[in-house]
């Protein structure tokens, strides 16, 4: 009956009561302001973002400042709480620049803003939700792929996630990381037609824009890596929330819909597929919590926890969304049913911050399982 001693660095994979309270607040807000018809309608408007939703989420609930210490104007919470917010955002697929601004841009600035300086001033703005920022790299860039995108504040950056919503662009260059006002006349933000309409993409063109140098090249590279690591790690929680919605709705639908004089959900062929999805969602939760807790505790194995979570949760979200469409049958193929929003978000998210394959390559490097 001897249990192995518990290692001291065992991650906390559960949710605290405070985290559950935060979840309830975010979920209630999203139910109120971002139900499926609202989101579908928003994706067909010029801008999908709802400013009142953002204000309520970022400022009233304080979600934008969760990663930011109180002395910089934030909530002084951690990645664990931000991950809970992302689970709920994934569950609703509401358009909101949370992952790009409140996680990736914020984490990048936090790595630079250990003391006073322009990064710290900007952090306060982001933490309050008054302004948003994006890291000006292609949305598919993972923690391993970050490099100086432009040689200076001249040039183009393709496919930047949520750039159109951003007030500030954080531009990595060979000389370091610059903060550039999106309203600068030398900046052009060209919206693209994205696969995932709930998370717009844009090309950026910089024609000698004026910017504030936040840090030199080495510190910038480390900060960008850190920002993208947090983005990839917490994207797993968004994918978890998305997958959970897909499973819940699919179970609900197949319990209610009757064909052959039976509920669809009584057919074993379908039950086994949903049970398999449940197992994947349960596993994704463990992987996502491990990544969030490892980032929060700044553990040395956080890069491995993130790579494992992203390599796993990307596929789970896509699988859940694909099963959701298929098991809904014809209605799942329609524009009016929200299943397509989840499929598009899941598929796009499987590329964002690095594909599962690129994260498996990171696992190979981190665990000394090298390629031939």
């Amino acid at each position, binding site marked *: *009956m*001897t*249990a*192995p*001693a*518990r*290692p001291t660095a*065992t*991650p*906390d*994979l*559960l949710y605290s009561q405070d985290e559950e309270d935060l979840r309830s607040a975010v979920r209630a807000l999203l139910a109120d302001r971002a139900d499926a018809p609202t989101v579908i309608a928003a994706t067909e408007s010029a801008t999908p973002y709802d400013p009142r939703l953002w204000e309520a989420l970022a400022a009233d609930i304080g979600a934008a400042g969760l990663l930011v210490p109180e002395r910089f104007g934030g909530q002084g919470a951690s990645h664990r709480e931000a991950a809970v917010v992302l689970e709920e955002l994934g569950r609703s697929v509401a358009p909101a620049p949370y992952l790009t601004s409140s996680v990736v841009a914020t984490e990048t600035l936090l790595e630079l803003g250990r003391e006073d300086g322009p990064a710290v001033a900007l952090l306060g703005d982001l933490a309050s939700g008054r302004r948003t920022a994006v890291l000006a790299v292609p949305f598919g860039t993972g923690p391993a792929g970050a490099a100086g995108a432009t040689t200076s504040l001249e040039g183009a950056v393709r496919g930047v996630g949520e750039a159109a919503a951003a007030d500030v662009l954080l531009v990595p260059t060979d000389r370091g990381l610059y903060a550039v006002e999106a309203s600068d006349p030398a900046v052009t933000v060209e919206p693209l037609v994205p696969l995932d309409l709930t998370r717009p993409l844009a090309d950026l063109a910089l024609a000698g824009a004026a910017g504030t140098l936040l840090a030199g090249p080495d510190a910038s590279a480390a900060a960008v890596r850190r920002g993208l690591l947090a983005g990839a790690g917490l994207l797993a929680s968004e994918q978890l929330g998305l997958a959970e919605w897909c*499973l819940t709705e699919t*179970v609900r639908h*197949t*319990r209610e819909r009757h064909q052959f004089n*039976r*509920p669809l*959900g*009584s057919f*074993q062929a379908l*039950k*086994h597929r*949903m*049970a*398999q999805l*449940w*197992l994947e969602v*349960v*596993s*994704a*939760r*463990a*992987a996502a*919590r*491990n990544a969030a807790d490892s980032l929060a505790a700044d553990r040395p194995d956080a890069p491995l926890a993130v790579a*494992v979570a992203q*390599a*796993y949760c990307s596929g789970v979200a896509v699988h859940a969304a694909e099963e959701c469409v298929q098991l809904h049958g014809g209605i799942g193929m329609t524009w009016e049913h929200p299943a397509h929003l989840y499929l598009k978000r899941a598929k796009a998210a499987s590329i964002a911050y690095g594909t599962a394959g690129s994260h*498996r*390559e990171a*696992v*190979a490097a981190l*665990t*000394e*399982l*090298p*390629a*031939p």
Partner: protein
Amino acid sequence: MSPVVDAAEVRRRTRELLAEHPPAATARADFLAARFDAGLAWVHYPVGLGGLDAPRSLQQVVDAELAEAHAPDNDPRRIGIGLGMAAPTLLDFGADEQKRRFLRPLWLGEEVWCQLFSEPGAGSDLAALATRAVRGEDGDWIVDGQKVWTSSAHVARWAILIARTDPDLPKHRGITYFVCDMTDPGVEVRPLRQITGEAEFNEVFLTGVRIPDSRRLGPVGEGWKVARTTLMNERVSIGGSSRPREGGMIGPVSRTWRERPELRTHDTHQRLLTLWVEAEVARLTGERLRQQLAVGQPGPEGSGLKLAFARLNQEISGLEVELLGDEGLLYGDWSMRRPELVDFTGRDAGYRYLRSKGNSIEGGTSEVLLNIVAERVLGLPVEPRSDKDVAWKDLNR
């Protein structure tokens, strides 16, 4: 009034046990007996039966103290069926006399237990079992039938047994639960050789086996309810053990990859990484389940974990055989042996590959577990059942 049994009290008692019976100077059997009698065997069991009526989570305190002192344990793997299945069932359904008689020698490992549940005609549909128990005029039960997949039957002193006592009732209602004496002359144990070449399991033939009514567990006809306690504990004991990173089936193949660069190919690399990630996630899922249990929020993840490990063990060991190439064409040893312990990750890759095929069959097939998840966790409707209100004797078998 007895003191409140909290972590400090449990620690104090454990240290007292260690002081009075220093492991280095005490015979193993004496130490274990003293531990049982001090209530430190399983603290959540009742006082007098090896426990302290304390919360189950406090067992960790005992185990940590004893491990640090290098105290002997009761070799839990050798007596897993007794500890994991017979004991919780005795605790829940046994009469006081039965608990007093059986639990102490069970925990000490003096008496090994086995499980007489599955039959050639009753696998996934266990409740359809055909072994008959008929009550004689003297009140004893006479049992006839055949059981299968019985590990430890050849070394067991006792068995937990379910048998049909009323064939006129629907299948779930005519079953009664017994403790069977494996030394009864009507019990014949034959090894059952399996695809690995070994015989971990046995067939057990029961011919006129006499069981006194005092060895019945629970009321006549309520055996299915009793058996469900046993089976629930079986799944927990299979899926719930703690593991370090690379602690399971992924360990050997990862070591082979690191040590044998000449075997590496691009295809096996991609598959290895995918499985490594899945194995790590399964490990984390198990860790999360343990954390939920520790704070008293048991989740339904246990049945899911068994599904995950069964598939992973099979895929990982299959990859390993392939990775080994020419060596994968060989097999260590086909000779018929009767190992006392089941070892999923021991021996060579070929053995691991073949043995892991059983992981999705033993303790509930993966197909049945998916049904359980779908119906009990997700609340999906049950399959239409044609056997529910039919007398067992009228079923198609």
